[in-house]
């Protein structure tokens, strides 16, 4: 059974009187444990597709099923709760809270759980150790390099132990060497920790780290490469 299943998914936006079709008739199954790269030109709908899979947005038509849950069946609150348990997000610009140190940034998603403070900090420290920043827990984002900040963001994404990581241009703001480190880390999380990774990228070299590559163009899947 695929971890992600999209059936006839379409998404359009209204801009004034104009209706903009972003995705059109997407059928897609992603198997558990996959590392999928979503590629395509700007405006092709990559991020929109990622947002639908991550439960950040709703399709105009069709259904999105993730981990056996039809996302359209969930209310706003229900969807928020579902995201907190099932999805880890990694963004291009890290989006760490600058006023919190690395440990507290990683701890953030756990604030919504019933874990004790001590357990939350322990889990956050473990996640930081996994991404190789166990010794930087007390550093604030401004005291870390871009690559280190993205590692903290990845630790934050995995701290609640979600099955699925959705990554939107995770190396888009990094130099080549650092980008390779981040991609290697995502590969380790995929292979050794069993996380399913869906990554949007413009970069063919980044996509090479994935086990599958999907191309989107004008809102449609145009090609699948293994």
């Amino acid at each position, binding site marked *: 059974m695929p971890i992600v299943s999209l059936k006839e998914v379409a998404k359009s936006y209204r801009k004034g009187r104009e209706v903009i079709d972003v995705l059109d008739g997407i059928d897609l199954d992603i198997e558990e444990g996959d590392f999928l790269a979503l590629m395509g030109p700007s405006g092709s709908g990559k*991020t929109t597709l990622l*947002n639908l899979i*991550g439960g*950040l*947005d709703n399709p105009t038509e069709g259904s999105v099923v993730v981990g056996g849950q039809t996302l359209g069946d969930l209310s*706003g*609150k229900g969807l*928020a*709760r*579902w*995201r*907190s*348990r099932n*999805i880890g*997000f990694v*963004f*291009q*610009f890290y*989006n760490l*809270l*600058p*006023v*919190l140190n690395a440990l*507290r940034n990683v*701890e*953030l*998603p756990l*604030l*919504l759980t019933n874990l004790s*403070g001590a357990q939350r900090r322990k889990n956050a420290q473990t996640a930081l150790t996994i991404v190789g920043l166990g010794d930087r827990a007390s550093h604030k984002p401004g005291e870390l390099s871009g690559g280190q900040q993205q590692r903290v963001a990845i630790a934050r994404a995995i701290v609640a132990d979600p099955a699925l990581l959705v990554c939107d241009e995770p190396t888009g703001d990094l130099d080549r060497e650092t980008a390779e480190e981040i991609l290697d880390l995502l590969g380790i999380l995929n292979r050794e920790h069993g996380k399913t990774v869906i990554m949007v990228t413009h970069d063919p070299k980044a996509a090479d780290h994935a086990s599958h590559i999907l191309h989107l163009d004008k809102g449609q899947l145009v090609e699948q490469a293994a």
Partner: protein
Amino acid sequence: MSAIGLVWPNLGRKPVRTVLTLMSLLVAFVLFTYLRAIAVAFTSGGFGEAGIDRLVVSPKYSIIDPLPVNHQRSIATVPGVEAVTHADWFGGIYQEPRNFFPKFPVDPEGYFSIYSERVIAPEQLAAFRDTRTGAVVSAGLAERFGWKIGDRIPIEGDIYPKRDGSRLWEFDLVGIYRGQPDDPDPGVFLFQYDYFDEARQFGHGGVGWFIVRVGNPEKAAEIASAIDAMFENSINATRTATEDDSQREFAKQFGNIGLITTGILGAVFFTILLLTANTMAQALRDRIPELAVLKTFGFTDGTVGSLVLAEAILLCVAGGALGIGLAAGVQGFLSVYLEPVIGPIAVDWPIIAQGLALAVLLGAIVGLVPAFSAWRLTIVDALRERQA
């Protein structure tokens, strides 16, 4: 750290902006605390030592019209009156106008007989009685200006010049009296009426008011009516009231203090509201992507909105608490100048509670719009703005 624990660190995000906003709030709440304390002092009467057995006989129509001193004999004949004395408002400046304190020419023995709670050593009272230019002051006044017995104190007579045209009145300090331990310092400078009346250029034989001690306070109203009836058809008609009421009436001469303070505070807080609302709006704009990220983790719209609202309330309460605390800490400064005129000024718990409630209300008002915006924020739009 809890979800609410996110609120405090956010205030440290832009330290300069936060400090400036806190300073604005601090000033506003210092003003609030002082003005409320002053308004309460004005409206409550509240002079700690106002005796329930004392009446004050004042001119009926204006406090600047003197009453003839020989009214005293007539008042003394009213049944129920035990003793009568008199005082007057001298005005006067000691060194400079900001060194304000009341100065009353009085009959030494009569005055201390009626104000029995003001304690003076018998030999000092005798010296006061026997020294033409003698003066006695409260312990608080003596401490304030570093006076000691034997000092010669010059006062410029801004209302009353002397017969020779000079405005310099010199007094010899012959005694220091004290109020009761739990009462505020009376803060009054007393000197001989006889000397004053002989030496002044005009107004001879006049006094500002009489103080009457009654035997039975329950009959005070009846005695007051009898006194006023006695002078009803005189050109020097009187208005007699209990000391507490009289002080409240005196305070009203300054105008509707409640309305004035409310007006000032309204203007101050309207300005503060605009400033703080602008700060909160700016803080929200700076953090839109972060708030969106919180929502991606599963923070609900309501939780994110509540965090923003809590931040606004915390900011205002912090500024308010600082301002109220500062005002309470230095209230003695205000008391020195105003207590002799309007009675004890206290930053008490009701004023502190009002101030904190106002801070919460202010925070809720300034935080409402940003909180609503945060609540309504859609993740996709917010993240798209960040990437644009």
